[in-house]
């Protein structure tokens, strides 16, 4: 039973550092030469479109996959994680999009699912219900979530609240580094705000956060560092001082490719009405660097 470990490292200490990390699936290059740094009390945002390699990157940090080249350091020590459990033991907790909660179960049962504290021994070994409820309430309150009732099924919470419970759970179970996979992807503006506020609270508590997103606005609201991925390679790495939101958005959206796309859309709009089944005549793409948006 891991008790609540107060985040140890000083703010600014490097917790996780990836240098020139690559990952291949057979002859497919999923990730090449990606570097990233997560500091205590800092939020590193990983931005990229679908297929950019964000998931591969998460999976390496979370211990689901092993990197094929480059170095992966945790608190200055080079590491290769064998499995997600090993990542957890090193203080890296990942909150995936599906959150791993059971909708019909009460919030407090979900909070401790799989790691329930017990008291008594032998046949009288039982859940420490008081501790579970109190802790759930206190932990959520500490991060600014005031639940009406920890007994309500977690399915009755809003998407943002559920996300926050999942994050609070990871924090409580001793996470030093929090990896969040698109926490705002399915949420409205207000709910996203709630989650981002909570992410900031986790940062202020001294955790290092990796925030995966494809929304540069959300990233820029809380992020300290921004790593842009494109087709498995690093398209940019910036600190907050060195980049504006507009520039980040432009780079994220593909920069010159966005211009090209708008040209193309104009052309399709002009010529497209009569050519019924023809493929929209895109240029053979001097932006060979993109498989997602322009050419298809």
């Amino acid at each position, binding site marked *: 039973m891991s008790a609540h470990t107060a985040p140890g490292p000083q703010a600014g200490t490097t917790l996780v550092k990836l240098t020139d990390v690559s990952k291949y699936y057979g002859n497919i290059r999923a990730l090449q030469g990606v570097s990233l740094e997560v500091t205590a009390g800092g939020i590193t945002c990983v931005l990229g479109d679908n297929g950019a390699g964000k998931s591969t990157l998460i999976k390496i940090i979370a211990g689901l996959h092993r990197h094929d080249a480059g170095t992966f350091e945790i608190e200055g020590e080079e590491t290769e994680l064998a499995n997600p459990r090993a990542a957890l033991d090193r203080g890296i907790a990942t909150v995936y999009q599906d959150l791993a909660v059971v909708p*019909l179960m009460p919030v407090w*049962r979900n909070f401790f*699912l*799989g790691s329930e504290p017990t008291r008594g021994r032998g046949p009288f070994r039982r*859940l420490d219900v008081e501790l579970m409820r109190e802790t759930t309430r206190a932990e959520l309150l500490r991060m600014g979530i005031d639940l009406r009732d920890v007994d309500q099924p977690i399915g009755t919470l809003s998407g943002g609240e559920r996300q926050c419970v999942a994050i609070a759970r990871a924090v409580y179970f001793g996470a030093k580094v929090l990896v969040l996979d698109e926490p705002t992807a399915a949420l409205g503006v207000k709910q996203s705000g709630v989650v981002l506020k909570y992410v900031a609270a986790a940062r202020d508590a001294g955790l290092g956060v990796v925030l995966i997103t494809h929304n540069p606005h959300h990233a820029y609201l809380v992020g300290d560092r921004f790593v842009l991925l494109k087709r498995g390679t690093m398209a940019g790495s910036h600190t907050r001082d060195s980049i504006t939101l507009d520039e980040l958005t432009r780079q994220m959206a593909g920069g010159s490719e966005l211009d090209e796309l708008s040209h193309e859309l104009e052309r399709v709009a002009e010529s497209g009405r009569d050519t019924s089944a023809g493929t929209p005549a895109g240029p053979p793409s001097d932006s060979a660097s993109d498989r997602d948006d322009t050419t298809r």
Partner: protein
Amino acid sequence: MSAGADTADERLAPASHLKKLLARPELGAVVGAAAVFVFFSFAAPSFLQASSLSTILYSASTIGIMACPVALLMIGGEFDLSAGVMVTTSALVSSMFSYQMTANVWVGVGVSLLVTLAIGFFNGFMLTRTRLPSFIITLGTFLMLTGLNLGFTKLISGSVSTKTIADMEGFSSARALFASQWNIGSVTLKVTILWWFALVAVATWILLRTRAGNWIFAVGGGADAARATGVPVVKTRIGLYMGVALCAWISGQHILFSFDVVQSGEGVGNEFLYIIAAVIGGCLMTGGYGSAIGSAVGAFIFGMTSNGIVYAQWNPDWFKFFLGAMLLLATLLNAWVRKRAEESK
């Protein structure tokens, strides 16, 4: 969640106790049981006599002993269609092993426990290995056991029922454990009622106050999430099937030691009675929701209806119709109550 820090209580309106009560899975069954009770109290004058009540409790207990583990299994998201014939298998193994192999029935009882648990393990193992629906797996087990019950009994005893074991060593002590009864005035109380209450108490304890209980709810309510948080999903499922098997063993021994001989064709169809009791008691067909106490109330409704019809001196042919109507009503009531409870939060 934007409100001030310590105002949690003011938003928990006084009505929350009522709402909590409404959100209990057993509520629909309790309301239904009260309705059935009142109905037969008027329809059948002898229904309210103490002796009738003990008869009702007895027939409720025979269903309830199995409905309880079946409810847990359904909360865990699975079915067991082999539960009915497994009871018969258990009784047959006990009886025939004792008769053929040894002089003491307790040996047969022990072997029967192992065999029945093995069947439960088989169900759970096949389910978790093949990932086929439990409906199919246990339907297969159901048919296989039905065939084995008949085939082996005919092969060994030469008829469709087993030979008497009443003169064997250990019979009276086994009977005391599984099929004794006490007379208190005009009332006869059978030991199965104690078994039933004890099982429901233990099952409730497991469900609500142990880690295993948390896992059962999680496995039924969201197996992927359970797996992701480190819940031993496979072990939980196999454990649930072995729980059904354990209770099938208790039921089987009761049948054997109260009637002394076992009919090999019995038990077919009873699996549905267990499922009905569990569903009337508030178990969701989709898993993740329900209670052991609810299954007991469901079994009690079964006992009241099956005997009430007799006390009212109606033709018992109507019984199944009542049971079906009750199932439908209870399920509708449950769905409605739960929807109300969840909306009102």
